[in-house]
């Protein structure tokens, strides 16, 4: 995969109509009931990556977490169960590389009252399915998640499923896009300020 022309941590030139179209099409794939890759070795590669991401988020290791993502990446939490079209609809979150880094920066300012103190989380990921692709450098992965989050005076469960689009850069799989489908995506959520 080619290197970006602009530093995506500073400038957002890569988020345009072509990217949106590709994003919608790719995350349609993980909604289908097509057969998935049965090869355990291959499935384990992606299961390991998804588990690694969950662990880094639970540990609040955001710098390391960001390194799992491609330079030109997307993190998308739709506000409707079917994903919808983020060009016409507000999403719960729709972050490019720079805004993901904003998110991490904000949490580190010491003035992010919604995360002072930070939530404690444990994440369970399971039902990892890998979809076959014509492109040897791309894999779409679907997994279920359950996040137990303790914050303030309650422990709650945030459940849903995620789609990961992995792409290979210099032989390394990185997350090029992640779609987080919360069961409560269209409901009022108390303090929605952890990274999912």
């Amino acid at each position, binding site marked *: 995969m080619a290197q970006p022309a*602009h530093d995506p941590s500073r400038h*957002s030139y890569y*988020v345009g109509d072509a990217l949106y179209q590709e994003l919608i099409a790719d995350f349609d794939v993980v909604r289908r009931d097509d057969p998935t890759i049965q090869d355990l070795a291959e499935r384990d590669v992606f299961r390991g990556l998804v588990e690694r991401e969950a662990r880094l988020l639970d540990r609040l290791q955001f710098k390391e977490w960001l390194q799992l993502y491609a330079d030109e990446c997307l993190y998308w939490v739709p506000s409707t169960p079917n994903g919808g079209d983020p060009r*016409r609809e507000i999403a719960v979150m729709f*972050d*490019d590389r*720079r*805004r993901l880094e904003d998110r991490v920066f904000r949490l580190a300012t010491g003035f992010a009252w919604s995360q002072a103190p930070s939530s404690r989380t444990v994440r369970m990921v399971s039902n990892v399915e890998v979809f076959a692709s014509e492109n040897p450098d791309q894999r779409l992965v679907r997994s279920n998640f359950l996040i137990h989050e303790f914050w303030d005076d309650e422990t709650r469960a945030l459940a849903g499923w995620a789609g990961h689009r992995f792409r290979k850069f210099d032989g390394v799989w990185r997350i090029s896009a992640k779609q987080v489908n919360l069961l409560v995506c269209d409901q*009022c959520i108390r*303090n929605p300020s952890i990274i999912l």
Partner: protein
Amino acid sequence: MTQMERVETVRPRNFGVSYDWDELVQEDRVHHLLYTDAAIFDAEMRHIFGGTWVYLAHESQIPNVDDYVTAKLGLRPLIMTRDSDGIIRALYNRCTHRGTTLCRFEKGNKRSFQCPYHGWNFLNNGKLRGVPWAEGYGENLTRDPKFNLAQVPRVESYRGFIFGTLNASAPPIGEHLGPIRKPIDEWLDRNPGGKVVVCEANRIKYKGNWKLAYDNSGDGYHVLYSHRSLLETENRFVDENTEKGMSYYRTAPDEQPMYMQYMGNGHHFKDKRPNLQPRNGGLWAIESLHPGMEHVEQKLRRQFGDRADALLDLAGSEPVNINVFPNLSLLGNHIQVFQPVSFEETDTIWYGTRIEDVDGTIGEDALNDINTLRMRTQEGFPNFGEVDDVTNFEQIQRGLRCQEDEWIYMNRGLGIPGRIHTLEDGTIKAPATDEMFMREYIKEWKRLMKAEPHLTIQREP
């Protein structure tokens, strides 16, 4: 209201508790009971969310005949319909048989609603169409208006915003809005054709009283502190000459041209536009960083040249807070609705808005780009700003459990000569960080709580 329609007067309720409202609401402070007392909340659902005009929905949510969307008037579940004759109605989502809600879906298109419990069927104008095994009743239920759905008797729109009240003697909505109409008009008229279309929403719940959100809606005092993480994030790349977002609060906010204005009937307005450069692109210049903004800006500048600035402003967040008592706030490009759940729980729904190319001068491609960017600018504040505010609202609710420490002060700006000005039209102007609007709206709240409103519901004949 026609003669034929059936109007029922709502019986006054005795809550078993009486309050000395003048003791609880004073010139410079209010009592914590306004936020912590379940009986006061119960009374508010009648006197405020019943006794005055309340925002219910936007016409663009039900554009076609037979469209519906569910809504709430206080705690009352409603089905907002555009009935088969095109009339907008606020039906009680409550079966007249034994009371279950008829409609459990958020939106759709339906000519009639069949009760899931025993199958009574109602038209979308509220009339009972039929019941299963009708011969089991001694009369024809469809001929007796009391079996038609109750509905909000007064439903009126102002430029697409639908309001409702149970108060038979409320003035027409335009009159009730009064001077706040001007900023609403300006907020709409900056968009092509003076129109916006509601799309999906950011939705945030907090464990606190609904008035904490309304108190905050025009509060210029909290910005630098409550939103410090946001301001630091928005400005992590820029120097002091090109500050982004609300950074103008940093230095002497009360000496800047922005201002706060109380507009009567509980409505108020924070106008930050005078702080901007009065030119096309002035809004875009302070817009913080959003996904895809450089891409769209580059594309529009190539295509439209000088006109690109005005188009980019359409994706920018309009720097106003237009607060319509008790539950509507227009800010940036959002239509924010405050939805009380209990005395200590509130839902805030930040509906996004997009624009239409009404006169065909933007073109489909550019319209798509502007709207896409407009979605991204709108996601910024709820994610990076509002979460910190609602945390502070929750912590106010927590602090107020210290019940012997009774008072909440809203006295900023009070009693300083020459600081607050009453204008000819009766509106009141003050510097940006004053709590004047809180003192004024809570007077209106007190007036409504003292009054015994003439509340009615209505049914089709």
